């Protein structure tokens, strides 16, 4: 148990940082050939199948992106269970929670940028959920994603520039050294690169294909399930915001209130996890 705790505290943050840096590097390579206009699906397929080693950079980008958020979730879960949020100032804790939301937003935008049927539908769902916000929804949706020819342009900007910039700004107090151990980083790069060569990515569905069901990214599956039962405003915006408020407030709470928030978050996370696993199968 002591060894596991040591591993989680020492290696996990380094692994998260390494994944993040490799993800940015592989993303830079992908950006060179990616065009967010015209036939985006074709462009992605060209990167994957025609351009030499394009498949490798795409797989590496996918693996490191997923690894980054999954490990970051484990990191937060570890600190949540050890109650280390008590040590943080509210502002710092809020920045860290915001940064994990930003990380999910980056992955979601990346999912849209695939340009396949799933990506286009995910973009449309996001657009319509935002449009559903009373009074301001129609106007503010244009800041995030737009219908028509420039459908992929704003997600591209958010995925490649705006959100990563915010992620770095929000985590700058938390991450003291971006490359603490170069040897470790090199070994991780080597291991993940080898893994990327043999890894099989999920299949892209052509935009014109007719398929009975279309699923969103794995972390969105529980919300997708909720969207079939409850109004989009509650499922798509209410649930994530409520969870954000709860997990942010825990650093301010004490005594019975802390106990209540802590168990509400735990139950919420377990239920969300179960729905996600059931929907993923």
């Amino acid at each position: 148990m002591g060894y596991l705790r040591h591993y989680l505290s020492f290696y996990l943050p380094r692994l998260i940082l390494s994944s993040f840096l490799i993800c940015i590097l592989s993303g830079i390579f992908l950006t060179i050939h990616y065009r967010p206009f015209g036939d985006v699906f074709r462009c992605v397929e060209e990167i994957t199948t025609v351009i030499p080693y394009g498949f490798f950079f795409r797989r590496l980008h996918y693996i490191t992106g997923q690894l980054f958020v999954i490990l970051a979730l484990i990191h937060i879960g570890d600190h949540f269970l050890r109650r280390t949020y008590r040590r943080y100032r509210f502002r710092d804790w809020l920045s860290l929670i915001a940064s994990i939301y930003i990380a999910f937003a980056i992955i979601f935008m990346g999912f849209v940028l695939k340009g396949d049927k799933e990506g286009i539908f995910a973009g449309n769902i996001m657009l319509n959920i935002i449009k559903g916000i009373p009074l301001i929804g129609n106007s503010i949706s244009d800041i995030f994603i737009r219908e028509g020819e420039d459908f992929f342009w704003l997600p591209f900007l958010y995925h490649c520039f705006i959100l990563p910039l915010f992620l770095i700004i929000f985590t700058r107090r938390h991450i003291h050294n971006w490359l603490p151990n170069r040897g470790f980083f090199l070994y991780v790069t080597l291991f993940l690169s080898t893994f990327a060569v043999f890894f099989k990515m999920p299949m892209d569905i052509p935009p014109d294909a007719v398929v009975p069901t279309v699923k969103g990214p794995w972390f969105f599956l529980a919300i997708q399930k909720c969207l079939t039962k409850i109004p989009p405003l509650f499922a798509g915006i209410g649930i994530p915001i409520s969870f954000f408020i709860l997990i942010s407030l825990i650093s301010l709470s004490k005594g019975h209130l802390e106990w209540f928030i802590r168990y509400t978050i735990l139950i919420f996370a377990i239920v969300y996890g179960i729905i996600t696993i059931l929907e993923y199968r």
Partner: protein
Amino acid sequence: MKRSVFLKTIFVLATILLCIIFLYPIISYLLYREQKIVKVSFHPNERLGKVNFKKGVYLIKSNHNWYALSAHCTHLGCIVNFDEKTEKFHCPCHGSVFDISGKRVAGPANRPLTRLPLRFMKNGDIIVIKRD
């Protein structure tokens, strides 16, 4: 009112005004959007069946008349599939079902599929007009 309080109030009001002056052009810039009208043209060869699909539009023949439906589900905008056996539209994202006239039958959508205006051309083409 004391002079210092008065000056403070003026200062706060001036700051708010300045914020609005700076925010207004930013918001206007971000929210500007050109409304585009997209015309989807169906050549006679492209409408041989009863239900024909092109670029997010379903063109449907009913007796001797034509009508067009937007293929975007009114729940959250996914493109609905047409099932020829049941003659119904199914949304692959959240399971809404619509009949051939576009009326909602089941699922979380609460509005029918949007009917789109048609234009019949002299060369035999049917043009469906939709806003992007």
